[in-house]
């Protein structure tokens, strides 16, 4: 029962993150929403590790790796955003549309 609750929470969080990532115009918020999605996954991992079929340490480890990679991704994302901002003077993701069709 408890597992389902965690899973539901993670799913809701994931969806919120997804919604934000797809609708927010500010790139920083978009990146943060992606973080939110990744963190939703971490909840899943930790919950499975604790209440899942075979409780153990694997899930925790996976979550740690996921956090690390999320951080790397965020860092690169922000770096890309800064470079973009320098040239275009905007952080609006919808203005990044010179490449199309």
């Amino acid at each position, binding site marked *: 029962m408890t597992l389902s609750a965690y899973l539901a929470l993670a799913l809701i969080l994931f969806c919120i993150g997804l919604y934000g990532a797809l609708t927010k115009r500010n790139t920083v918020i978009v990146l943060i929403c992606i973080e939110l999605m990744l963190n939703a996954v971490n909840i899943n991992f930790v919950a499975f590790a604790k209440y899942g079929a075979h409780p153990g340490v694997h899930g925790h480890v996976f979550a740690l790796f996921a956090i690390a990679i999320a951080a790397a991704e965020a860092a690169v994302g922000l770096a890309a955003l800064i470079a973009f901002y320098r040239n275009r003077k905007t952080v609006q993701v*919808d203005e990044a549309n010179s490449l199309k*069709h």
Partner: protein
Amino acid sequence: MMNLAWVVPLFPLCSFALLLLFGRKWKKASAYVGIVATLLSLLAALGVLAGRLGGTTYEANWTWMQIGDVTLTAGFSVTALNAWMLVVVAFVSWLVHIYSQGYMAGDERFSTFYAYLGLFTFAMLGLVLSPNLLQAYIFWELVGLGSFLLIGFYFYKEEAKAAAKKAFIMTRIGDVGFFIGMLLLFWQTKSFDYDDIFRAVGDGTLSPGMTTLTAILIFIGAIGKSGQFPLHTWLPDAMEGPTPVSALIHAATMVAAGVYLVAALFPLYEASEAAMMTVAVIGGVTAIFAATIGLVQTDIKRVLAYSTISQLGYMMLALGSGSYVAAIFHLTTHAFFKALLFLAAGSVIHAVHTQNIEEMGGLWRRLPWTAPLFLVGALSISGVPLFAGFFSKDEILAAAWLNGSVELFWLAVAAALLTSFYMFRLFFLVFTGEARHDGDAHEAPMSMVGPMVVLGVLSVASGYIQTPWFGSFLGEWLTDGAYHHEAAPGWIAVVATIVSLVGILLAWLMYGKRTVPRDWLSARAPHGYELLRRHYYVDDFYRWTVVALVSFISRLLAYVDRYLVEGIVRLVTGTVSAAASAGSRGQNGQAQTYGAVTVAGLAILVVIFALTGGYWL
């Protein structure tokens, strides 16, 4: 000698090849090449005839093409019929070769003319020698080619171009009938050989229905080639060709090929009542039909052309009436007197440089050789007793009567009346009365007169090979002695004589003595006159029906091709192109749209998954 019969057509072929290659260099000497080649052919043909006199039928075959187990052969055979025909063809051809030397003198393409004549003679001789239907078909079309080339000899004239095209296409229509009939027959008998076909007819392998069908289909070929109704319209137009050509091809030889074909396949026709009836009716109708048109034509060659059609109709009538001998007999005499008439007409044209008889007249004195010779020809064709035409026509009338088809008999009698009328109309208009043309008219050179004299003699003499009085040499020859002359009622000859004399008399009254006004017919029945003058509107009928229909379908298909077929292709390419544009526009440069598309894709997959209880299919 018979085993060497294959050399007969070879000489003209050599002449053709040589003249094609070197004719431009040889110029006038080309004529001698042609004349010598045909003379050699003639001698060889006489040799073959002589050989056949003493021997029996000879046949030799070689493999032409193998199709699986079936072997199609090519070869030659010497039968009574074709030995006879060989001589007739080679002889007329030789005479025309000689005549042309004078007639065509000065033409820029003199050697080409002789080359084409050589080609035609080769094809015609080949046709005669063919031992099987396929080979006959091949040469059948080749004579058509020779005819086509010679009709279109004055290629720069639009009329000649049109006439050549028309001649080829009209005969092609008939040829397709021949082609279909021939192939149908092949699968019935597994052979193209005449003998095999006759055997199949004899032993009943060939069903009666199929016999009739194939016989009629092949007869369509004969209709086309021999200018029978309703495929006759090309023949008058073919007069655009040089006159010697008209004499050779469109009077004496090629047009008679249809008659020859039916004669060669006679056992097939005899086996079918319906086919015989068809042949007879077409022949009879054509005889009278063409004769009526001939009454009102003003072009000397066209009158002769319609007369040819009419006479060929006679021969068909003879065949259809079962008298094979009468047909060949008439074919032979007709070859001579009609060639004579044409050559004489050529001589007239040569002298006055027009073909319109309204512009001639009073030429009797000016053309001391031509005029009497023309008269001989006219008397012969009119069936005046003692001339060749009388005997052969009499045979045909007798055959029609004996065959029991009274209607056809009277039709033929009527045609005979008309024949003598229009022939003498021609004679009187051209040679009597006052001259209606300017300039001098001179008699033709000896090279032209000579052949005419020979033909003039034959126009009389050739009748005596088959007479009720001296015996029927030709009949016995053609049937290998099995011929027995059925005595026709004597009154037929009398009737024939009377009608021919009446025709001449009428013509004299109208055009010689002028007691009957010339516009007698056109004044009384203007529509009828117009109908005849316009050849019964057959050409117009074709133009407004067949040609229009084909043209319409063709136009329709052109639209189908351009709009429907191409339209579908355009539709497909257009759809792809539109999809490309849409896809390209959909790529709007928004990173979030891309993500949304993905999520939508995921959502669709999940929804489908949920709805179908998990899985597809």
